[in-house]
């Protein structure tokens, strides 16, 4: 009586050893994921082409920066930023400025491009020099998060 029972128990435990972890793994794989916003440059005009790109443009953060220009002869330049790591600052705004900011103070000529968002397309209001500074500024923290010097764009 005891020997057959032990055989049954052994088989049951071996089976459970395989089945229970398998259920656990299937459960883990079937979980809903809470996605984070993903980068997408879908709003860049279809006729635009990249005129410059760099991952070393910004002083403190690794932010892949692409400049686009429309192929229809327009002088307009568009900009898309893809940070290597999420930039979690409150109310983060992107500015275009002819001069570099002094400490955490924006110059009076700084032009707001919009609220920063990964993969968002910004239109650069270029001056005659077609060069200047990109500035990430957080009004809530009153700090300049980062600055990028942009040399003359084509």
């Amino acid at each position, binding site marked *: 009586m005891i*020997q057959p029972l032990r055989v049954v128990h052994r088989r049951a435990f071996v089976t459970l050893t395989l089945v229970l972890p398998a259920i656990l793994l299937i459960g883990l794989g079937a979980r809903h994921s809470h996605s984070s916003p993903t980068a997408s440059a879908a709003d860049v005009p279809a006729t635009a082409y990249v005129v410059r790109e760099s991952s070393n443009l910004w002083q403190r953060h690794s932010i892949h920066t692409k400049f686009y220009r429309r192929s229809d002869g327009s002088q307009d330049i568009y900009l898309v930023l893809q940070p290597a790591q999420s930039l979690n600052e*409150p109310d983060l705004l992107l500015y275009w400025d002819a001069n570099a900011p002094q400490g955490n103070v924006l110059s009076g000529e700084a*032009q707001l491009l919009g609220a920063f968002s990964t993969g968002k397309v910004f239109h650069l209001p270029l001056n005659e020099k077609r060069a200047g500074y990109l500035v990430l500024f957080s009004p*809530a923290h009153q700090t300049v998060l980062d600055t990028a010097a942009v040399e003359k764009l084509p």
Partner: protein
Amino acid sequence: MNDFYIGYLPKAPEGLARFLRRVIAALGVLAISIALLLVMKQMRFANSIFEYGKVRGFEGTIATAPYPSLLVERPGMAGPQSKYSRYLLVAPGKHGADELVAGFDGKKVRVQGQLIYREGGTMVEITPGSITPLDTVPADRESTRDLGAVTVTGEIVDSKCYLGVMNPGQGKVHRDCAARCLSGGVPPLFVTSNGVDQFLLVDPEGHALGHDALREFVAEPITIHGELLQRGESRLLMINASALTHMAGRIQKAPPLAERHE
């Protein structure tokens, strides 16, 4: 494996002891592997911040509708961009800020509070009694643009926890907390399932929803249909809360107790 274990003998049979040693070692390796797998497969915490205990000062114009907000003027030349950033306002604990900002609508003020932020959304938990009116020109009213009807799938969350006070501030594990926060007047937020879009939920007239209007639907996958509005850089989704239904396969509302006893 024909060895027979007898509990009162000082030693187990050699063959059985060897087998057990191997099984125990294998189970140990398996347990460690599963533990490592579980740790590695955990969802990452959202990159959200609550600056608890760090009180800052803010200046802006109070807007009480649809939900209490502070319109903060953006420095520099705005051009075609919105001139103001909108920070949602809440009170400490699970409470909206309606009472704290009552009487300040449209006025420029200085307010103290703690920042809460996540992925572009910014909120301030006001320090009660810290609102001081200023003698300067308040912000212009932001224009509202109708973006048309949309159908979106995602989750209703309470904005305070989602933006940073709790982590995780969404999903089933956070459901009870979210229901209590919405009941307390914290603005409801709809987050699409891809995590990209956030909409403040309002009623079909663009007013704040009743505190308990969404309690039953919070923190579960849901598809809703509504009219999308753009105000500054905030997006509001006008919905009819009484027309919301649970998605197929979700738990249905239980019948009243009396019905069940019959």
